[in-house]
């Protein structure tokens, strides 16, 4: 069974004044196919850094620890190699790519991930179906990637990619932020569809418990100050809903 294993991960970021700051200070996490892990924590605890470090964003420097996918060293791979190995990051702030249409982008990405162009007829049908499921207008395909997208459209577009690219592991970085309840449901249904069909491991990074009503995690990890401060089952999320992060912060 595909396994994503994070061991004692230390990550720094370069600061504007020329110094470096350690953000992740020894993270351990093991993710298996079909599992949903929620990573929760206050702002600045390093949740997004974990997501971007796994995906290979050049801004972050790994100073210690390992990330392996079925034993393969993920940290030795380039960003695109990681994606082709089966990792997917749904970004909190997806970037505009002017002049590149969604349909061209999706086809290019699918071709890169699969190593061959998708069969035209089934591909067009799959895209149409996936867009339909996410309640996206067909004209969406001809718009430029993320250009003039609303917050909700950007998140749907991220989940659309997840459904079409079928990764082994998906990291969803605050996919719920900025969504109204209707959009949150649509996006959550997309994740649940992917779980039911291809069953990726999902690392669900969130600040709030709201999305956990729609996507059920088996594991909850509370992130504080660059490490996992506590972990448990879904009941941990329930207790967070009542007490918030205060008890972790005072202890830290």
């Amino acid at each position, binding site marked *: 069974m595909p396994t994503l294993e994070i061991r004692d991960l230390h990550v720094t970021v370069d600061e504007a004044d020329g110094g470096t700051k350690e953000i992740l200070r020894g993270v351990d996490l093991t993710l298996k196919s079909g599992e949903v892990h929620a990573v929760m924590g206050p702002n600045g605890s390093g949740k997004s850094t974990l997501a971007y470090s796994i995906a290979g964003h*050049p801004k972050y*420097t790994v100073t210690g620890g390992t990330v392996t996918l079925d034993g393969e060293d993920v940290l030795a791979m380039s960003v695109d190699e990681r994606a082709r190995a089966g990792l997917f*990051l749904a970004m909190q702030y997806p970037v505009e790519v002017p*002049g590149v249409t969604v349909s061209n*982008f999706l086809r290019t990405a699918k071709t*890169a991930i699969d190593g061959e162009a998708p069969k035209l007829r089934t591909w067009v049908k799959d895209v149409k179906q996936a867009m339909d499921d996410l309640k996206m207008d067909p004209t969406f395909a001809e718009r430029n990637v993320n250009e003039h997208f609303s917050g909700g459209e950007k998140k749907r577009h991220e989940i659309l990619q997840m459904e079409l*690219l079928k990764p082994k592991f998906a990291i969803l970085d605050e996919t719920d932020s900025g969504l109204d309840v209707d959009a949150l449901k649509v996006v959550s249904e997309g994740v649940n569809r992917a779980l039911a069909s291809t069953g990726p491991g999902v690392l669900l990074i969130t600040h709030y418990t709201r999305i956990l009503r729609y996507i059920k995690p088996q594991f909850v990890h509370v992130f504080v100050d660059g490490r996992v401060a506590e972990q448990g089952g879904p009941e941990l999320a329930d207790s967070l809903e009542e007490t918030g992060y205060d008890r972790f912060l005072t202890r830290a």
Partner: protein
Amino acid sequence: MTAVDETTTDPAAGSPANTARAHSHGGGVVPDASRAERVTSFDVADFEVPTGREEEWKFSPLREFAPLFETGPAGSADVEVTAPDAVVHRSGTLQEVGAGTAFTPGDRAAAAGWAATTEAHLVSVPAEAELDAPVLVTVRGTAGTTTSGHLVVEAGRHSRALVVLAHTGSGAHRGGVEVRAGDGADLTVVTLQEWDADAVHVGQHDVLVGRDARVRHIAVSLGGKAVRVSTNVRYAAPGGDAQALGVYFADAGQHLEHRLFVDHEATNCKSYVEYKGALQGDDAHAVWIGDVLIRAAAEATETYELNRNLVLTDGARADSVPNLEIETGEIVGAGHASATGRFDDEQLFYLQARGIPEDEARRLVVRGFFAGIVERIGVPEISERLMTTIETELAATALAGTSSTEEN
């Protein structure tokens, strides 16, 4: 975006740092020297041979352009015209084709070129005619020769036409282009600089926009050693709408210069200027000058100009100088923006995080950068050909770029 030198100017915010000339946005500030005062003349003696200290030549490689400043006889480039039946095409002397009613040389090269032109061409689209195919004018230069030429493009009232002027081959060429769009005409003129790598070219394109006419001028400069195209737009009467669009891709050692001057004197006219360029390699140099003058009489003018440069490697240089002079406050709007930046690392990360390899991600971004203008040319085969050329040029960067970008 990781900008290396970015200035985006709000019309209300004052002068950008890289504006070399006096800059005013209404409010009664009189600039030191108006763009309107620049000399134009048919007499080459009115223009000294440039030394490089002149405002209008200070960015140009004068050594490359030197043959084009010389007076005396010069040959004609090979010109071939293919046009739909409705179009009248004639060649002859400048006088025989009726040149010079909407064109006056504005610099030494243009005046010397005018004086040396023995064969000029007229492409005339009759009134009311709506062409179903483009007019194609091909200019082919020959290595080791200096040539001069003049093309008049005349669009009769309420006509609709697309004229493509393609420059190919080698040598040193001075080309005058005189565009006269009649009342209500809808005219697109595309000028392609697809020269061989050693060619030099100085061109002046004067565009006269008739009442309620709509003119698009699209310049695409990809080839040549040194290319300088000056495009001057004037309005014969109210209601005109002019767009000047351009794309360029400067490689190592290549100089590509585009100078725009939109002279608003008639009322209720619009202008929109948008030039986008990419640069790569040592001493790749792009120059964009965007002068817009709104004269006191030009009430209800609406104008915007924009230049964006994408610097792909170290060692390249982009000069971008927007300049807006406004002599009346009674306008609809006036603005300009200029931005020069590097590849956006966040865009590349986003695409690579979807499995797309770096070189392909760069290609997608550059294609997207140019697509908005190239696709407006109106001839799909030409748009596709230009995109292919751009991607071929870009492939050279990918090779050169990998060594410097492998840091993580």
